[in-house]
């Protein structure tokens, strides 16, 4: 690999937001946008606000608990549109790409 290309690659991976892995970008967005307040830093539903919510958030690592499907597409849809129960508000400020990245990280945390 030419030195110049290698340098660009190193710089790109060192800049926050430039991670090449969708799940890595997703976790950064998950933390920056405050998802951890309810869902916890690792998505276990144990964020600081969780005990005081009318409907406690689920453990995102348990794929059996997803009422509307546990695929990345399903999760991204719930992020953007919220859930019918209104337990989860719609985060429609996120772009489709951002929601997809967050969903990629969440799915990477799932155990079957």
């Amino acid at each position, binding site marked *: 690999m030419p030195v110049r290309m290698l340098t660009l690659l190193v710089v790109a991976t060192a800049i926050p937001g430039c991670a090449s892995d969708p799940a890595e970008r997703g976790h950064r967005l998950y933390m920056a*946008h*405050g998802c*951890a*307040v309810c869902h916890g830093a690792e998505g276990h539903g144990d964020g*600081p*606000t969780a005990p005081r919510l*009318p409907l406690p958030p689920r453990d995102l690592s348990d794929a059996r608990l997803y009422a509307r499907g546990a695929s990345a597409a399903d999760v991204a849809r719930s992020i953007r549109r919220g859930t019918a129960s*209104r337990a989860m508000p719609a985060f429609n400020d996120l772009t489709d790409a951002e929601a997809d990245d967050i969903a990629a990280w969440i799915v990477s945390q799932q155990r079957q």
Partner: protein
Amino acid sequence: MRRTIACAAIALAAGCGQSPAPPASKASAQLRPAFGGDFTLTNQDNQRFRLQDIRGRAALLFFGYTSCPDMCPATMSRIAGALERLGDSRGDVVTLFVTVDPTRDSPAVLKQYVGAFRTPLIGLTGTEEEVSRVAAAYHASAEPVPTGTANYLINHTTAIFLIDREGKLRKYFRYDEDPDTLAAALKAVLRTE
């Protein structure tokens, strides 16, 4: 909080538990000079905080409460998105989260809350009187909504207030303002001073 935080002459937008009541226009509004102003509250480290303490930096101020299930997390996400769009200038902006629920939102509770955000955030609380005074200055209101459990909700003003480097309130935005619009307004404030 068992009584209503000071009500305002105008309701900007209220949320949490009920549908928000948006202002007539989605466009941000210019504000009169008497709107807003300096205040003193207590931050998440149990230190007294004056708005003047951040003079030289712009601020986005938001009234909310840490157990809010919908409007507050959604608004904080938009603010995070706006700050991401600022690039290196994001350090020139402070985000202030003023609780309208001082009974439950102690400095310790606020510390846990702000710690869950990677976006820098200052959580502010105080006595009911102190919080009421700040809310009145920003024409914000809050009203408890009983749920039959200890986890009551609060309908509250959800506007996002933009404060310039001199501590003057410049504009307010709806809670669902596009992050691009918020970022553009922040850039304009940072550029003109």
